[in-house]
């Protein structure tokens, strides 16, 4: 038996022991319960030892005198019990249906209770909130500390609110964080090799192909990287972790392969995170990229067949949930053929003969 599994076994036994201790102390234990207890106790000296430890712990807790210094559920924590306020902005009926049938609409909460009752298939992980979105779906979630996470489509974050810090892991996609100010409890977002630390501010972290983009809308954050040894060796140099400070309207991209970062550049922070208000702003981006962004938010998918058109650069501001407005815009500026396949696919340009599958434009 490995050391790890023995430890697991002990913890399990500790929980069982506590359970039996409470059962016996309630003094309404049925004969069946008492029989189960005795059988459990006679199974292993480990069980006896854990029962002894549970007894001791109970005594230690009774003797503990500083309960007044233990933080009670405050207003902040209460929101956890009352449920996280979840605004689920789903635009198309198809997306709603998909999300209910979907495997991974996952919302667990710290100590997670009520949410479990609400949706089936909830992944309950102790002390961790998991928020996921699928295609065409965006979520705004208010965390127990008052911070707000806007999650872009096709994204996953895990949140752990601890006493001394708030930890968020962006496992996929992109998220905008409006951090509730608390200097004693830094808000730390990690994505791949990048860590972004804030106290109270608004910033966006996006995992893109090749790297992690950090954009600050308000306030200031510090960005650090952890370069893996393998990467350092591959690059033929000692690893040099990046540590930089980003202010409002600044952006940096950290490359996952090297751990290097682009120079900090000035951006329009609000525009960069306009997606969170269902606004898509494009500044000199290819039609293919733009189509990909729209496709993330909508069940209706845009396929660009015309390669010249796909590479063409456009700028503009659109409602993310209104791909038709973009199609109308393209039609007016480029004069391309617009075709439709059913209700869900809009083709820009004419497919060549014999083409079986249209190209997709997805992030």
């Amino acid at each position, binding site marked *: 038996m490995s050391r790890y599994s023995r430890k697991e076994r002990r913890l399990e036994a500790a929980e069982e022991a506590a359970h039996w201790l409470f059962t016996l102390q309630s003094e309404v234990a049925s004969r069946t319960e*008492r029989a189960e207890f005795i059988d459990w106790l006679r199974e292993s000296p480990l069980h006896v030892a854990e029962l002894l430890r549970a007894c001791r712990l109970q005594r230690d807790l009774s003797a503990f005198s500083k309960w007044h210094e233990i933080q009670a559920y405050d207003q902040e924590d209460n929101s956890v019990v009352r449920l996280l306020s979840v605004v689920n902005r789903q635009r198309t009926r198809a997306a709603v249906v998909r999300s209910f049938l979907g495997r991974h609409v996952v919302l667990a909460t710290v100590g997670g209770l009520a949410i479990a009752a609400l949706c089936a298939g909830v992944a309950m992980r102790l002390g961790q909130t998991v928020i996921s979105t699928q295609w065409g779906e965006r979520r705004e979630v208010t965390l127990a500390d008052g911070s707000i996470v806007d999650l872009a489509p096709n994204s996953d974050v895990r949140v752990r609110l601890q006493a001394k810090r708030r930890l968020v892991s962006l496992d996929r996609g992109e998220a905008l964080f409006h951090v509730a100010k608390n200097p004693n409890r830094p808000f730390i977002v990690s994505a791949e090799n990048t860590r972004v630390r804030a106290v109270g501010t608004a910033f966006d972290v996006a995992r893109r192909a090749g790297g992690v983009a950090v954009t600050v809308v308000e306030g200031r954050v510090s960005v650090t990287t952890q370069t893996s040894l393998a990467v350092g060796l591959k690059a033929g140099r000692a690893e040099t972790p990046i540590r930089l400070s980003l202010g409002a309207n600044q952006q940096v991209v950290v490359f996952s392969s090297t751990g290097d970062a682009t120079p900090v550049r000035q951006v329009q922070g609000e525009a960069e995170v306009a997606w969170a208000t269902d606004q898509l702003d494009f500044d000199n981006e290819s039609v293919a990229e733009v189509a990909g962004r729209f496709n993330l938010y909508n069940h209706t998918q845009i396929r660009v067949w015309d390669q010249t058109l796909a590479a063409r650069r456009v700028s503009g501001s659109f409602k993310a949930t209104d791909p038709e407005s973009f199609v109308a815009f393209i039609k007016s500026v480029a004069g391309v053929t617009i075709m439709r396949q059913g209700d869900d696919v809009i083709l820009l340009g004419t497919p060549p003969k014999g083409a079986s599958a249209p190209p997709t434009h997805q992030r």
Partner: protein
Amino acid sequence: MTGTSNRLAEWFYEWRQPLRRFLLRRRAGSAADIEDIAQEVFLRLLRYDRSDLIDHPQAYLYKIAANVSAEWAARSSRSLPHSAEWLVELVDALSPETVAGHGAAEAELQRAIAALPSRQREIVRLHFGEGMTHEDITKQLGLTRRMVKRDLARAYAALRASLDPDLVEAGLPWPSSGRAL
């Protein structure tokens, strides 16, 4: 925590005290003692009739405790020039050392309790800090009995894993009164 509901918790201390005298005498480490006791109890449990144990589990545990307790006490007094009580008194006296140990134990408990997930922490606090019963807590927090019990059991397991036994062991005083046997 008063009255009969705490009697099982006392059980442990009935074991601990004579054993501790014995181990103090031998200057053995504290780490092995629970395992030693557990082994002893386990073997005795196997000797009793299962259905007797089921009928009166607590009574039998006390009986075993009393027996082992007496044996440990006998062994420890045989090996000591003075009365076994002498060492117990020494341990219990609040010398500066044990006062410091007491502070360390409290700090260690406080650290571990603070690190619990918020709902578990609240349930532990209401139960031990404010003396609420499981039933009271279900009303206070709007949870089911089952959830309260499960959270409390998980909190025990988490504390058991995170507490440094040496710090807690050294510090908390033996209860001076309210001993229920």
